[in-house]
């Protein structure tokens, strides 16, 4: 394990997507075993900077994600640390069996770096929405699932994932997530981050929904509701201790994810609370439907993925407390 050294300063005024590209080049210099694999999307996934800097360590497989993921397994058996990049829906669905059988089953050190997840490609329609990937990926043994939010967290996650032993699915969202963090902090895979203290209700979220969760908490405080906000950037292995603590101290939980509620963060959290500390829990997410086409904000509003939805759900869940 190398020393974590990516700091806030380098990633202050940069989009989360560009942060990914920049972090890759930083890590490429530090870790000679890194190789970058792409499937004709190195430009849009922001692998291009690494490709330019390390052309001999970059391999393009064309529009053939299954081949790319299987080849990543081959690279890993020879001591390389392959970063396999593609749109999230292609890694999690097109190459699903290769991820499970060629990487997770033999437990190979492959880093699956998925971009354009959630509703990032909103106007792309259902073919390009990536709203089932967490459900699929968290069902595979040996696989770690990480989903950072803003630019600095993306960069820190890239660094941590590369040093983390074993296969990891890194879920990156849209290009422009507003900054959640205003100062430097410690990022550790498997350890959630308390973003806001509160004892009336807990909002657990990741990625873009963290921004909505923080907005909701700001509003709730005006109504005298103190909402705890937790950044659950690692979906698997999930931070059980933080969930149990939140359940027992606040007595009610809201989960928020830009993903279907079937098998996502909400069910992962409910799995912990139902076994260790049952409390009322409402899942904000895509309610078992395909999402249609439209601009991101319009779609999110339509699907109930806004701060307002979190506020309403929070009030409701508080009333459900015994």
């Amino acid at each position, binding site marked *: 394990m190398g020393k974590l050294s990516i700091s806030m300063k380098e990633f202050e005024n940069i989009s989360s997507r560009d942060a990914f590209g920049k972090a890759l080049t930083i890590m490429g210099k530090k870790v000679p075993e890194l190789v970058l694999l792409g499937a004709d999307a190195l430009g849009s996934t922001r692998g291009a900077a690494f490709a330019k800097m390390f052309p001999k360590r970059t391999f393009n497989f064309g529009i*053939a994600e*299954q081949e*790319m993921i*299987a080849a990543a397994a081959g*690279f890993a058996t020879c001591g390389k640390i392959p970063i396999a990049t593609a749109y999230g829906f292609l890694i999690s669905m097109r190459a699903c069996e290769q991820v499970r059988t060629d990487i997770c089953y033999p437990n190979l050190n492959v880093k699956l770096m998925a971009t354009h997840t959630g509703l990032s490609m909103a106007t792309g329609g259902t073919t390009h929405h990536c709203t089932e990937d967490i459900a699929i990926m968290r069902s595979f043994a040996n696989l770690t699932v990480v989903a950072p939010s803003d630019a600095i967290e993306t960069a820190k996650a890239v660094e941590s994932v590369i040093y983390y032993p074993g296969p990891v699915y890194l879920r990156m969202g849209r290009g422009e997530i507003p900054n959640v963090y205003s100062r430097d902090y410690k990022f550790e895979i498997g350890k959630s981050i308390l973003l806001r203290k509160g004892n009336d209700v807990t909002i657990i979220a990741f990625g873009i929904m963290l921004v909505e969760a923080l907005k909701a908490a700001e509003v709730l405080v005006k109504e005298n509701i103190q909402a705890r906000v937790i950044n659950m950037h690692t979906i698997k292995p999930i931070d059980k201790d933080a969930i149990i603590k939140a359940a027992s101290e606040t007595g009610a939980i809201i989960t928020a994810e830009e993903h279907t509620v079937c098998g996502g963060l909400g069910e992962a959290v409910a799995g912990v609370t139902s076994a260790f500390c049952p409390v009322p829990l409402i899942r904000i997410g895509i309610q078992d439907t395909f999402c249609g086409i439209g601009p991101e904000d319009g779609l999110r509003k339509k699907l109930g993925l806004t701060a307002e939805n979190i506020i309403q759900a929070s009030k409701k869940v508080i009333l459900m407390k015994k």
Partner: protein
Amino acid sequence: MLITKKRNWRNNKLKKLNSMELVKKANELRLLSLEMINEAGGGHIGGSLSAMDIMTALYFNILNIDPENPKKKDRDRFILSAGHKAAGYIPVLAERGFLDKKLLATFNKLDSPFGMHPDMNKISGCEMSTGSLGHGLAIGLGMALALRMDNYDSRVFVLMGDGEIDEGTVWEAAMGAAHHSTDNLIAIVDYNKCSMDGPINQIINIEPIEEKWYSFGWEVRRINGHNMDEILTALSNLPNEKGKPTVIIADTIKGKGVSSIEGDYHWHYGLLSDKQLLSARKKLGEEQ
């Protein structure tokens, strides 16, 4: 549990077997495979026997490998992409010194290190966990690229079934290997003309097979997969053309070595009767 062989075996200094010795060894291994399948109560007999001459030639003449040092970096790699032929492959690894032969009796049993499809983390000498068809060539391509990056002259051999090349990922990898000029990648197609539901040309015709690989940019060799001289010639002096991956299309017979089942697609998976096993013991025993 990683099974490695005890240190007192000397197979790492194995003298390469010649063609005649390889024929004998292959028949000995066919019998070992049949005995193992019999003990297990069934197995993938047909394909394990059709590929046995090729696997024997690889493990006892061609591959640069060392059972005493199974992870040495400059070794050749072999991927059994048609993972169900493990019933043939596991006895080969055992005979070559990677595994204790006594363990063959555990095949398919609870907590055995091996069963129908091989697990690389439980079997010393096994380079990749396989079983789902169509994955091996792309995995082999990744290995070939990684080995070339590090300037090893290692080669990667990938053994596929004929029905397996129905899978689209085989052709993704075929295109990729030609594009990336991985002449250290060698595909072998065990063309026994049978898949699970019937004769292959009645299920999905894969002809013209040579032309397909040629047109994808591969060097193609066509051999009789049961003629040891032809096998050795095809597997030697690789690559045939610099910058090009090679495919060896080996015409074989499903169930080769047990006359009562040869060429019959029903024997993809099965268990010989006592009578068939006795007859196979006699015939293969004589041919050793």
